[in-house]
């Protein structure tokens, strides 16, 4: 999410510059660099006040000491050492914290892969198969339907559907396909991934659709004229040109899923650990420095993933 704000920021000066032509004469007296600072200023201040400064605090607090009921502002690595307590002694077995981060990465990867697959084809359908602009608009609005109810309600709605005595199980039992209710439908990794995909596919659809809609149709015609098969066109023309959308969508999904603890908690029956959950429990136990330390670790991991992705695609250039 953070990096996506970065992207927006990169883009904003261009956008603002266009609307300024009317006052250009007046502005010309001021130096152009001053004007662009002025234009970027408000966003920068918001970014500084509500993102960078709190982030600096989180990093500082992560190096504080703590006791049962207060923070002790003295330098201490306890937040970090407590987090990894016993991890080295336990080798080669992985300790809980390492397993938790691995589990989070695994869930994140699954959700990312599935949302990308579904999102790509939904966007493809909207961009290339729907000719009328009105229908394109209407159908993309349709994609927002999951967002018409609250996050929590959308998750909880799965429970009567997937539960032991839920619709799916009772339906299957009645048709005689199964004799015993399927237990792994609910409170399992399956239900977690299902709910996350349900919640976040939209975040893939929009940026990918956005990139695809800007692909010059004549390029596809040219590929077709040159004798490319549909598959070749897809791989050599459409996917490369939709890359910025894919990367932006991926960043959305990955940052959200890495930090999620509510969906994983509810759909996993509180039995599946996630990095976000560790932070929540730490905060609840008033261990703020330890919570901050875990937040920093999570941030670093997420940041690494995003850096790797932006190595693959230079978003600045593509935009």
């Amino acid at each position, binding site marked *: 999410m953070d990096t996506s704000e970065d992207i927006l920021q990169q883009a904003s000066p261009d956008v603002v510059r266009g609307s300024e032509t009317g006052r250009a004469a007046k502005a010309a007296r001021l130096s152009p660099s001053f004007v662009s600072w002025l234009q970027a200023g408000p966003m920068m201040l918001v970014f500084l006040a509500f993102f960078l400064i709190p982030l600096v605090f989180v990093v500082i607090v992560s190096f504080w000491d703590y006791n*049962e*009921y*207060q923070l002790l502002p003295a330098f201490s690595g306890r937040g970090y050492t*407590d987090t990894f*307590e016993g991890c080295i002694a336990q080798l080669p077995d992985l300790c*809980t914290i390492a*397993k*938790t981060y691995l*589990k989070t990465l695994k869930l994140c990867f699954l959700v990312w892969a599935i949302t990308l697959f579904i999102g790509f084809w939904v966007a493809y359908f909207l961009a290339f198969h729907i000719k009328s602009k009105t229908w394109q608009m209407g159908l993309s609005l349709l994609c927002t339907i999951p967002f018409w109810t609250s996050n929590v309600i959308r998750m909880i709605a799965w*429970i*009567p559907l997937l*539960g*032991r*005595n*839920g619709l799916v199980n009772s339906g299957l039992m009645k048709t005689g396909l199964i004799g015993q209710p399927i*237990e792994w439908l*609910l*409170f399992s990794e399956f239900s977690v991934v299902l709910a996350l995909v349900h919640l976040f596919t939209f975040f893939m659809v929009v940026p990918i659709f956005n990139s695809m809609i800007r692909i010059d149709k004549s390029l596809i015609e040219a590929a077709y004229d040159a004798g490319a098969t549909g598959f070749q066109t897809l791989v050599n023309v459409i996917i490369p040109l939709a890359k910025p959308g894919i990367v932006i969508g991926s960043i959305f999904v990955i940052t959200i899923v890495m930090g999620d603890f509510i969906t994983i*908690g509810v759909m996993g*029956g*509180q*039995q599946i*650990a996630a990095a976000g*959950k*560790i932070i929540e*429990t*730490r*905060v*609840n*136990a*008033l*261990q703020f420095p330890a919570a901050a330390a875990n937040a920093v670790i999570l941030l670093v991991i997420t940041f690494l993933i995003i850096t790797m992705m932006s190595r693959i695609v230079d978003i600045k250039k593509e935009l």
Partner: protein
Amino acid sequence: MTETTKKTGVSRRTLLKSTAGLAGLAAGSGAITGFPYVMSAEPKVLRYLGTAVNEGDDISKQCLKDTGIKIEYITATTDDVTKRVMTQPNSFDVLDTEYFSLKKIVPSGNILALDAKKIKEFDNITPVFTKGETPGGKKIGGQGTAPWKVLYLEGKDSKKFATSATEFVTLIPTVYNADTLGIRPDIIKRPINSWAELLNPEFKGKASILNIPSIGIMDAAMVVEATGKYKYADKGNMTKEEIDLTMKVMTEAKKAGQFRAFWKDFNESVNLMASGETVIQSMWSPAVTKVRSMGIACTFQPLKEGYRSWASGFCVSKGVSGQKLDWAYEFVNWFLSGYAGAYLNRQGYYSAVLSTAKANMEPYEWAYWMEGKPAEKDIKAPDGSLLEKAGAVRDGGSYEDRMGGVACWNAVMDENDYMVRKWNEFIAA
């Protein structure tokens, strides 16, 4: 203010000017605290921070009617309440929290002890809190953070608990209960009488406990003791080795697929039980009542090892003073005067002052809820819905039997930090 404007017809500007002038004058003369006009203009509002247990619309409405005090509820989970006391002590006036949180809250210096002399009914508070025994003289188990261990402070601003009675009370008790396991008798179809049943492989994939570490570990300890694996010196204050042992037993059960899910709030526990996802789990009494009111059989099962108990009460933020503090005392006194107590009793909790609650209940209600007798008439919830038909008996029987059967209290351990980490590992295992 608005009313004055209407009556006298002065413009807002002149009114503001004159009020400011008056206020300035009052401030200058040092008489601001006793100034009648300024004070009467201020509505009697108390910001009330707590979990949802005591926070009923009916209670706040009745309070407004009787005392003119408007209660603004700030509802949070137990953990969040504590967090708020630590980080934003000025964001509330009255605090409603559990006794076990005191071990964290009192050393922070963010709350004000109340003066027992100003609490009218203080001497009538049930001996459960003051002596650790029931009115009938049964000794109550004191493992964990039992209320009588943390009821008094050494002095007004002291951060140390007093070992004997003093004037300064940390929390004026309001409500408490004896918790046990909830079961689905229609699915289990056999008597359950021990905490050990929670880990019985018969209920594999159908059991649950709550994911609030300080309470969950107590339930776990009840189970471990019931299986005969270990006997704790104090379940509410384990050593590191004891924590490891307890979590090992639970982790093995978890890995074997014993638990269906863990729950964190009231509604989650109701949903798990009502949908049949679980058939045996730790539960709160009103949650059992809720499941039952949905037409699903659910029993708050008394067990031979006894109950795990909890209690909560009132104190005020350290930022409260002057008139507001008087209102706080007025409110606490009102709360103990009967209406609220009867209301809580009818939900299956217990009130701190039994005599006033009794005066506010029908004799047949008192007999059902408190004396363990079969209901003479239909038993209704505070909202008027039917809870039990005539003839039903309360699970676990009378107040004496239930509170007398308490084995331990919700607690914060000395090794709390370590326990929380181990609990996390259990959840993640």
